[in-house]
């Protein structure tokens, strides 16, 4: 039986593909899914598999899950000890709690800094607005690693900040800033600030400023109008920006490692150490899976906020 030709422009290949049930539209839709399967689902399954394996002194350093044994049986060995272990040693729980704390504080700081900036940009004249947005995005033109190294140069004992303060006579010996929680927060807030500003700006930019005049007309002082009108109306922007900062900050590795010093106990660093220093791939995998499971609710919440935001548009 011949498949009817759908379009006059269909090529020979297209016709042949159509005959086996593949359309151009289907291909386009399939591409992102293929990408996700290849680079997200497959690695995830591998990590999940390793997290249930036994450690082995071999290459790779773990034992297979499935093994053909004698008399035609397939032995499946799932080792839950890797997960149990995470809760017996306080290190992992501490690292996780500390990561959550650092992410939360960083998100709060980004919000405090980013909200006035986003507000200022949204209320500026259209011409300056584009320039200001460009300035917000400008740091992305340089690699994150280079920018973090630049902070080392600024914060270290004989770095720019200490030198300037000492030459001005404000201090007499250098402040210990590098390899402290302070340096780590500076690095995280600095790196993630644009992720807070941009969704907030996108939200505030849609705001009808006449609502503030209406609020003042009805008896609000300017700060009351901000608190009762602007803030609730920018709720979705605040949530979106906070999720965009919080989720990656929990697993942040580079910034605590470079600026926070050896005592910055973050789950990302624990994972790295387990994997590369201890070669404990199953433990490292279990940490990774646990982290993912913890962050999924936040990601779903963020998705929800995004869906609501686009649904509320007129």
């Amino acid at each position, binding site marked *: 039986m011949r498949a009817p030709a759908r379009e006059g422009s269909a090529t020979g290949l297209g016709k042949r593909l159509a005959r086996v049930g593949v359309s151009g539209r289907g291909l386009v839709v399939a591409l992102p899914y293929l990408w996700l399967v290849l680079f997200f689902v497959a690695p995830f399954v591998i990590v999940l598999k390793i997290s249930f394996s036994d450690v082995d002194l071999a290459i790779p350093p773990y034992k297979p899950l499935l093994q053909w044994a004698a008399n035609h049986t397939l032995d499946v060995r799932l080792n839950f000890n890797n997960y149990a272990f995470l809760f017996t040693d306080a290190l992992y729980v501490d690292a996780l709690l500390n990561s959550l704390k650092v992410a939360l504080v960083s998100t709060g700081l980004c919000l405090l800094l980013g909200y006035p900036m986003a507000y200022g940009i949204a209320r500026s004249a259209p011409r300056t607005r584009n320039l200001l947005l460009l300035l917000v995005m400008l740091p992305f033109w340089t690699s994150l690693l280079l920018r973090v190294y630049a902070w080392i140069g600024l914060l270290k004992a004989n770095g720019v900040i200490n030198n300037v303060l000492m030459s001005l006579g404000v201090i007499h010996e250098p402040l210990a800033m590098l390899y402290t929680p302070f340096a780590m927060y500076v690095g995280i807030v600095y790196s993630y600030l644009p992720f807070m500003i941009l969704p907030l700006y996108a939200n505030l930019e849609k705001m009808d400023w*006449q609502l503030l005049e209406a609020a*003042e007309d009805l*008896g609000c002082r300017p700060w009351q109008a901000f608190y009762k009108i602007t803030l609730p109306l920018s709720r979705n922007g605040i949530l979106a920006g906070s999720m965009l900062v919080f989720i990656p900050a929990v697993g942040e590795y580079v910034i605590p490692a470079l600026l926070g010093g050896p005592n910055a106990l973050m789950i990302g660093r624990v994972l790295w150490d387990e994997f590369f220093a201890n070669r404990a791939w199953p433990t490292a995998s279990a940490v990774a899976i646990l982290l993912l499971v913890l962050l999924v609710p936040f990601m779903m919440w963020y998705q929800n906020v995004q869906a609501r935001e686009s649904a509320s548009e007129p």
Partner: protein
Amino acid sequence: MGNPAGLVKAAPWKDPGVRPYVEIEHLTKSFGDFKAVDDVSLRIYKGEIFCLLGPSGCGKTTLLRMLGGFETPTSGRILIDGEDMTGVPPYERPVNMMFQSYALFPHMTVEQNVAFGLKQDRVPKVEIAERVAAMLALVKLDGLARRKPHQLSGGQRQRVALARALVKRPKLLLLDEPLGALDKKLREHTQFELISLQDQLGVTFVVVTHDQEEAMTLAGRIGVMNHGEIVQAGTPTEIYEFPTSRYVADFIGSVNIFEGKLVEDEPEYVRIRSDELGGTIYVSHGISAAPEATVWAAVRPEKIFMSTSAPASADNAAHGVVQDIAYLGDLSIYRVKLDSGKVVRVTRPNTTRHAESITWDQPVFLSWDATSPVVLTT
């Protein structure tokens, strides 16, 4: 057209004993070199509906925003009920505004929107509930109290905005193009609702509009604005029948203006020789102008008679050919080209159902009464 009956019983602006409620004194607002409002002085009386009417960019909205406290005057001052409002911020003025976009708070229900101003004033909760319910009943929104603004129609939103501004019992309610966003049918209906509401509450209204029909229906008095100045203020009838300038005559309704020279100027009448008309205009009232001065006679289209036979008098008469007819149902508009070349607009009500005898390209005679023209010197 005409005054809403019974609204402003007397004419307080004609009685020097009555104190004006709102006094605007030499108010000017400049943006750089541009004078948006130029030395405006105006008195508005208690319980009035005063309309500021003018084309876009004439300064009417700036004037309204200065009354609301959203713009600071460059010079001059505003007194409301005897109190100087200069430097008083919007949130402390006894004035509320209904914004053109309504500016309803999208995250609040109808009820919360209306209660907002009262909560801000720390009115007791029980009283808030009572006043909001009464106000919603007044604007016929009782059933919609828990809806959000985006769940309402345009007309309902307009009523929420009105209720929100009125519930605070302001001394003065400012309305910026209150009916601009409504369609024509709804607009007409809402105009009369607005008037009856104002009558019940007795609040003084200042309305900004560019729609002359809206101004004529709503207003007790109209202030016609142009280039930041009030060019004429008066009742709709005064503005329409006795315009003081060609600008006002032309802006309100349509009008035929004939340029001419004053040939006879007596206390009881004037006679104007007009080449545009191709004859003389006789007006049964005197004016004060220099002899031989250039003046303009304005005649409204509905005051011109059109006939196929020649009129008796030589004054106030012209001959021409029907160039165009627009049939609007209730009336028809005729464009008659005079022998002088000038095109005159004539309207006739369609009082019978059968077609008129006057048709395209037909020669006709035009004439009007000696009381119909208005002589303008500017």
